[in-house]
């Protein structure tokens, strides 16, 4: 677990205005962005979840390995901006070995403290994507042990359980060959209307 005290308390920072870009993009954040920890896919995992930020196209798939009470291993794949990537990387370090109850209790301020910088309203969506992904993965794991009514279950599966791979495939449309003699150059009536 990474000590969270390596940054000053978030509330202290929030009290003074942000003057430099360097304030937001501290060395530590850039380092986690360029060299994310726990990046990749676990060989064996208990639960996984893909979370999107439709605003900027960030997406992370989280893999969690858990025993009865604790998170035993964690990894993630995906792409995002410096804030979301650093947040995902820092959070992965933090939750290693934490109890599931503790992880589910983490709130926005824990993430802001991890990042150690002032986060604007819009960027908080980037910062909190990591937490959403991890907590949703755990929530779905718990849900699967208490089945929902069938109708709702189908919806949950449709909306959340798409593997990341699907989103990366470029759109390929088959191109039909023209049928000889079928083409006409003159303007046709729009007969189907």
């Amino acid at each position: 677990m990474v000590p969270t005290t390596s940054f000053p308390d978030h509330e202290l920072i929030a009290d003074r205005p942000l003057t430099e870009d360097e304030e937001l993009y501290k060395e530590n954040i850039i380092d986690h962005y360029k060299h994310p920890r726990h990046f990749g896919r676990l060989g064996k995992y208990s639960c996984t979840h893909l979370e999107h930020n439709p605003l900027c196209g960030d997406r992370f798939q989280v893999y969690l390995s858990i025993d009865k009470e604790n998170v035993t291993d964690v990894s993630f794949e995906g792409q995002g901006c410096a804030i979301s990537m650093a947040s995902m990387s820092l959070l992965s370090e933090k939750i290693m070995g934490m109890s599931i109850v503790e992880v589910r209790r983490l709130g926005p301020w824990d993430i802001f403290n991890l990042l150690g910088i002032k986060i604007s309203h819009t960027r908080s969506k980037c910062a909190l994507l990591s937490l959403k992904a991890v907590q949703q993965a755990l929530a779905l794991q718990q849900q699967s042990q208490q089945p929902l009514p069938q109708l709702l279950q189908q919806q949950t599966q449709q909306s959340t359980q798409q593997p990341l791979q699907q989103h990366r495939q470029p759109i390929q449309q088959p191109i039909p060959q023209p049928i000889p003699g079928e083409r006409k150059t003159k303007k046709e009536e729009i007969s189907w209307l």
Partner: protein
Amino acid sequence: MTPVAERIGSERQGEQFLKKKARTRNGNKHSSVLDLTTCRKDFPLLKSGIIYLDSSATTQKPQVVIDAMNRYYEEENANVHRGIYALSEQATQKYEQAHQIVADFINAEFEEIIFTKGTTESLNLLASSLGKLLQPGDEILLTEMEHHSNIVPWQQTAKERQAILKYIPLTSKGTVDMAKAKQLMTRKTKIVSVAHLSNVLGTINPIKELAQLAHSQGAVIIVDAAQSVPHMPVDVKDLDCDFLAFSGHKMLGPTGMGVLYGKKQLLEKLSPYQYGGGMIKEVTFQHSMWNDLPWKFEAGTPNIAGALGLAAAITYLKKIGMENVARHGQELVQYALQQLSAIPGITILGPREHRGPLVSFTLEGIHSHDVGDIAGRNNVAVRAGHHCAMPLHHQLGISGSTRASFSVYNTKEDIDALVAVLKKVKEVFQ
């Protein structure tokens, strides 16, 4: 028709009306009343000093547009097509005039202009009403550069009608592959729906050629003109498109206000999109008779203030002259391309020529959201992300891009400010 509408109808044929119409239609050829170098002062929000480079998302509004809308609520507020008292008659007249102003602006007829809440609703209207006529196996043809609003409605229609959705691929330059377009258009193609000006690549598509191809196969062609109508003269008769959609808020007008143009003979054959008051002639407990065009497609109390705001925006643009607006946009985009391409590690998307006044780009190793954030902190407003065109960005193999887009109030100094801020971004991430 109500007595008011009849009166306006007869006025429309009157001498005064024709004179006015001739004047507005030839507006572009007249010397411009508004000067582009000074029009920035007409936009109250810009007085804050913001470098606003996100006009493809929404433009700022000139005072005349804000005034037109305020005047309606302060002095003219009444429902349209309903009251027979003077206030309502005046509101009705102004609302109908707004249709005529829009019609003149794109060289359409009064009956061919339907007011919607935006391009998205205009396209949804078509996906719904045209969709009802599709048979299983019919094909809908889009391009790979479409905005979500010109993809998602068709996906749903295709699913409901068991129709097939196909995409015309792009060339490496970011233009529509016309050879592939020819192959893809067959007798099975019923609907072709394409952007006039790509909101990501800036590409201006050859609508006339695509319309010809579509018509030769008996298909209808729909033009998503959200990005073109604000920046260049658009003539629906010249394009020979069957339908054309655009939004008010991207052309100096208000949000929640959009337009659908459709050829009269086609609109007459379509069934309504929404049902309720205003779109009917007669209602019994079991059946209803639809109103005349364009009201058949305008159910419920419309966005009256929005319509008056859009009319004011068009009047303002005409005072500048759309030829001048287009020339100004070209000057800015060519300058931007030249300045931006000198930055190491930048990749500019889309073609270099024959493009609209916007530039999307990526900076190597830096996420567009970080670029947008640092720019924003330095008072430069640019768009970051996928710009509602996720499939295109996936196809290009990038997660997002940064976009700078221009309008009448932008200057070369704004672009210099952008270049300076991009250098700062690179320093932070070096």
